[in-house]
């Protein structure tokens, strides 16, 4: 700025801008008052009410170090619905995730796990992985360690519905008295840097969010009867965040505001999910999966439940069957968009036949089954000629014939349990979502941190996506606690470095590792030629090596994934 000839001194001299303001404007001292246009300042503002965002809020509020922080969680949907979620005991949501022991322990420490409905979760102790291109298989379990001490089986992971977790987190947040931090049915219309108020605060480096309430007026009056800690305050229009946390999913506006790029690729695959009913296992381990273990018996203790994953390179990806209580299971089948559309167009009985086929038949048979004309079940209700009935059951008859001639128990002696038979599929539970791989180029910016899907999206084949988000939330909560207990500004870039250095590398390695695994299992998917066959056999050899040959390798892999 050029110098201004001062009327007071009468000679030209350079006065800097701040001093000029100080000299010309009368200073009025203001304590604890903000001008009307100063936005309300929050310590931690989390945008996004998914599992990661809610877990972060619960962690902050449950720790005595950080519970005094002024927090806000902005969620565009109405959070009363997830809070009131309930489902009959034999029906399970098709969005269920596998929680590693670290995630569960984080949720237990913050007190949220107690609010998760324990009758709707299923811990499993073993995972069988095999490949349609060869006869190798890998069993992941902790038997090698637990059998040494005759200990009960150690959990590999726990299946829990996402809605169950969300409800538990919300209940915990309300229990901690932080219900007023929840701004549900609120959208963020813009995020900008604040203004530098000459008489007040300099918020030019602080994110300021403009909020818009989406809820109807009458629903706000309904909340009048609730206790004060429950009632959300009337939505302010502008809030400033000391630390803005982006937990707002794949297309994160917070990430866009921070100017952080997210790179990756679309897999050109869809994940088809459904809730299935399985045929019960043998009667002696049957329905009660929570029976007490007899620690003094010399028999190996049975696993509570088993997860199965079969790789189908020529069909686009693996099919995974993850156990739920009462002989139910959650299925995630990663396959091409065309196959996903085909599966969705089939009647339920044909869908069940296709899933059973995917677990047992050769890829040639599967490709043939996927080429059969799909008979929509709405047509079958109206006309019932023999031709229609035949067309309706052609998947089942084909499956039955091929099962007689398919060797489902290969020579590999290490495979103990054949995959389960699927007997039914829950109505309207078959859905699909696109699979993508993205990772943000940085997890932090000054006053911004990213957790969950905003930071990274990965392939579901290892069941790690949600766990990465929870691990991020845990790490960020610890980072904030460290900053608070050391008198630092929680949003300062140097303070956030602690979080980034803990999580960036680990998240990227996990995402990259899962991607490499996916690529590995897509090799030899080009056709039935000799090269594809050789590649498949080579991969099978590698699987056998991992399963048996190198003693600690499997344990190492399982420790990384837990």
């Amino acid at each position, binding site marked *: 700025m050029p110098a201004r000839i001062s009327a007071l001194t009468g000679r030209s001299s350079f006065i800097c801008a701040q001093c000029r303001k100080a000299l010309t404007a009368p200073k009025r001292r203001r304590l604890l008052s903000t001008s009307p246009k100063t936005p309300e300042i929050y310590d931690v503002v989390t945008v996004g009410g998914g599992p990661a965002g809610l877990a972060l809020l619960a962690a902050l509020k449950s720790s005595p170090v950080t519970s005094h922080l002024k927090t806000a969680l902005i969620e565009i949907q109405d959070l009363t619905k997830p809070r009131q979620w309930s489902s009959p005991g034999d029906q399970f949501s098709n969005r269920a995730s596998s929680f590693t022991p670290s995630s569960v322990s984080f949720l237990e420490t913050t007190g949220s796990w107690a609010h998760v409905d324990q009758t709707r979760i299923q811990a499993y102790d073993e995972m069988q992985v095999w490949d349609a291109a060869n006869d*190798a298989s890998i069993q992941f379990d902790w038997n090698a360690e637990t059998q040494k001490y005759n200990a009960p089986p150690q959990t590999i992971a726990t299946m829990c519905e996402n809605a169950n977790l969300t409800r538990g987190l919300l209940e915990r947040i309300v229990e901690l008295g932080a219900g007023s931090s929840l701004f549900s049915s609120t959208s963020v219309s813009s995020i900008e840097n604040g203004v530098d108020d000459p008489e007040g605060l300099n918020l030019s480096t602080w994110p300021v969010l403009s909020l818009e309430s989406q809820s109807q007026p009458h629903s706000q009056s309904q909340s009048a009867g609730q206790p004060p800690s429950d009632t959300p305050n009337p939505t302010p229009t502008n809030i400033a965040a000391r630390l803005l946390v982006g937990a707002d999913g794949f297309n994160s506006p917070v990430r866009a505001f921070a100017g952080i790029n997210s790179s990756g690729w679309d897999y050109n695959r869809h994940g088809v999910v459904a809730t299935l009913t399985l045929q019960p296992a043998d009667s002696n381990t049957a329905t009660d999966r929570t029976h007490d273990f007899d620690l003094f018996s010399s028999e190996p203790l049975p696993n509570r439940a088993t997860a199965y994953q079969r790789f189908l390179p020529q069909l686009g990806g693996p099919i995974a069957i993850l156990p739920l209580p009462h002989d139910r299971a959650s299925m995630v089948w990663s396959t091409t968009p065309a196959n996903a559309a085909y599966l969705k167009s089939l009647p339920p009985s044909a869908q069940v036949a296709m899933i059973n086929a995917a677990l047992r038949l*050769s890829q*040639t*048979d599967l*490709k*043939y089954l996927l080429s059969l004309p799909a008979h929509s079940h709405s047509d079958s209700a109206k006309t019932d000629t023999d031709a229609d009935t035949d067309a309706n059951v052609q998947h089942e008859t084909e499956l039955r*014939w091929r099962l007689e*001639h398919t*060797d489902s128990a290969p*020579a590999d*002696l290490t495979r*103990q349990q054949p995959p389960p038979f699927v007997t039914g599929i829950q109505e309207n539970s078959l859905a699909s979502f696109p699979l993508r791989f993205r990772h943000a180029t940085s997890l932090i910016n000054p006053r911004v941190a990213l957790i969950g899907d905003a930071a990274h999206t990965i392939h579901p084949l290892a069941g790690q996506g949600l766990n990465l988000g929870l691990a991020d939330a845990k790490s960020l909560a610890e980072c904030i606690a460290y900053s608070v207990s050391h008198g630092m500004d929680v949003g300062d870039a140097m303070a956030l470095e602690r979080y980034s250095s803990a999580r960036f590398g680990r998240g990227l390695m996990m995402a990259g590792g899962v991607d490499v695994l996916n690529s590995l299992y897509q090799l030899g998917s080009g056709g*039935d030629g*000799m090269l594809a*066959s050789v590649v498949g056999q080579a991969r099978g*050899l590698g699987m*056998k*090596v991992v*399963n*048996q*040959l190198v003693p600690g390798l499997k344990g190492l892999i399982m420790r990384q994934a837990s």
Partner: protein
Amino acid sequence: MRATTTPSSLTRLLALPPPLRTRTFSVLSRPPPNYPGHIPLTILERLSLAAGSAIGSLAKPYRHDLIASLGETTAKPYFLSRLHRAMLNNPTGRRILRDRPRITSKSMKLEELRQMPENSVGRAYAAWLDREGVTPDTRDAVRYIDDPEEAYVMQRYRETHDFTHAITGLPVIIEGELAVKAFEFANTLLPMTALSLVAIVRLKKVERQRFLEVYMPWAIRNGLKAEEVINVYWEEELETDVEVLRARLGIEKPPDLRDIRKALREQKRRQKAEREGSGAGAG
């Protein structure tokens, strides 16, 4: 839950670790057969049978049982599975695998076939069998393939080999057999068909030249462009016109080998008669 057999310490020393081990049983404890007539073989047995069959069938090409065992021992691990998959990918092939028809003298009654319309596949088949003096029963049963369905595929290949002869018109002499084998290699990729082409060394010079100039190029060209002949449901095609079937499959008819040979013999006889006539005239 380890494997129940406990090998001696020497074999344990020499054996590869379980994931890399390839042998699944010993000759003293053969597993039960998977279908009637099945004989499971160890790797060493398979390799030695393949080598012995190759040498034996080259020495005596009429030993059809050696050619059969050569085919079975060399068809795995990949080639027979590929042929099996080719059948499963095709709707007609799948029907054949479901119905599992067998071609024997009982199922293919020659008297009925001879009555079929002129130029039909059945009539051509019967005519070819009569011309060459063979019957459908000369095919051996498959014994050394472990999977029952793949064993059926091999059996079906063997039993329909004569149909390939019939619609191409190639005779049962070595030259004709080699032409059909070359065609089958380009069409089915079974290693035995390629290995039997080594028998070219047994042909006379003239025959070999003719084979390499005319019949081998025909076989490769047509075998590659034709549809998979294993997927033809011959029992249903008996009344189809041969030309129509050939056109559908994409096979050209090769020059009639017997006619060529007969013409050559006639020519030689005439030349010899002329030489003797002129010699007698001159002398």
